[in-house]
């Protein structure tokens, strides 16, 4: 029988992933994953931590607070830099593209 009961908020709705046989300590590392020698954890654990830091830092950065004068200057510069892109020649844009490809941007 299919149990389709759920709370009004759906809080306890069953997840897509079957977790009954999962490692109770959390997401299992992939079988052949190597341990990163510096961090001492697997790549998938690093990915998980990186997403956690990303989400937490994004939420924190979105919290309203007054900007410092240095931040205000940087924020104004960012708009000016963005506007400059519109006036760049094809060669200049190509140079920007090459630079970003080199730096992993």
């Amino acid at each position, binding site marked *: 029988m299919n149990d389709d009961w759920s709370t009004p908020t759906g*809080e306890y709705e069953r*997840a897509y992933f079957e977790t009954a046989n999962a490692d109770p300590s*959390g*997401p299992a590392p992939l079988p052949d994953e190597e341990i990163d020698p510096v*961090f001492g954890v697997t790549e998938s654990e690093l990915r998980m931590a990186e997403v956690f830091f990303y*989400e937490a830092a994004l939420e924190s950065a979105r919290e309203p607070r007054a900007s410092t004068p240095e931040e205000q200057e*940087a924020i104004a510069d960012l708009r000016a830099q*963005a506007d400059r892109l519109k006036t760049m020649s094809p060669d200049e844009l190509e140079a920007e593209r090459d630079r*970003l490809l080199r730096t992993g941007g």
Partner: protein
Amino acid sequence: MADPMNDTTRLGPTLPDIQRALDEHYTIAVRETVHRFAEWRAALVRMAGRPVPKDYAKELAHDAYTSIWLGLRGWDPERIPLDARLCWIIKDRSWWEIRQAKKRRHVSFDLAIHDPALDVEAAIAIDVAASATDHTRFEIAGLYRQVIASLHELARDDENARAILRCWAQGFVEHDDIRALTGLTKPAFRAAYDRILRLAKRLPPELREAALELLRRVS
């Protein structure tokens, strides 16, 4: 890490449409958020031992914008807020920088200590600098390990949080994708997501202090 927000199989807007949307969505609020996020990531790159310029946070933020403007990175304005997209690109780039810094430091240090022209004083200076870098990197690694342990602990008794964390570990980031993969309703996803993020505020005091101290030292 592959860019999970850069799904080229989806038919999205054209580049001119994206450029118009970029221009429109790049508000003061977005630039504030993105610049603050970039400052945090710039601090992490410095901690990894890579010397970066004073305006590095601004460079990260502008490069993220430019990469979308040029079509190197995708963005669907209908699906992802601009600040989230730019911050993800900054995270990606800075993670790449952290890894590169680690490799470069080993290469330059190995070359330096084998240079017969290097005098004793310079060799000691390099050794001290390398030890300092190892020290901060050890602390970063410790921070990551403790956060991972805390996430595992949360996941143990929380099925929905565990499902989200499993998605993160497998490279899925977009909230809509995670909800589709996990079958979580929007409220269930949000509740579990909030429980995970509350972890950032519930980290052991010594861990929070360590993170703050690291940031103070590199800023």
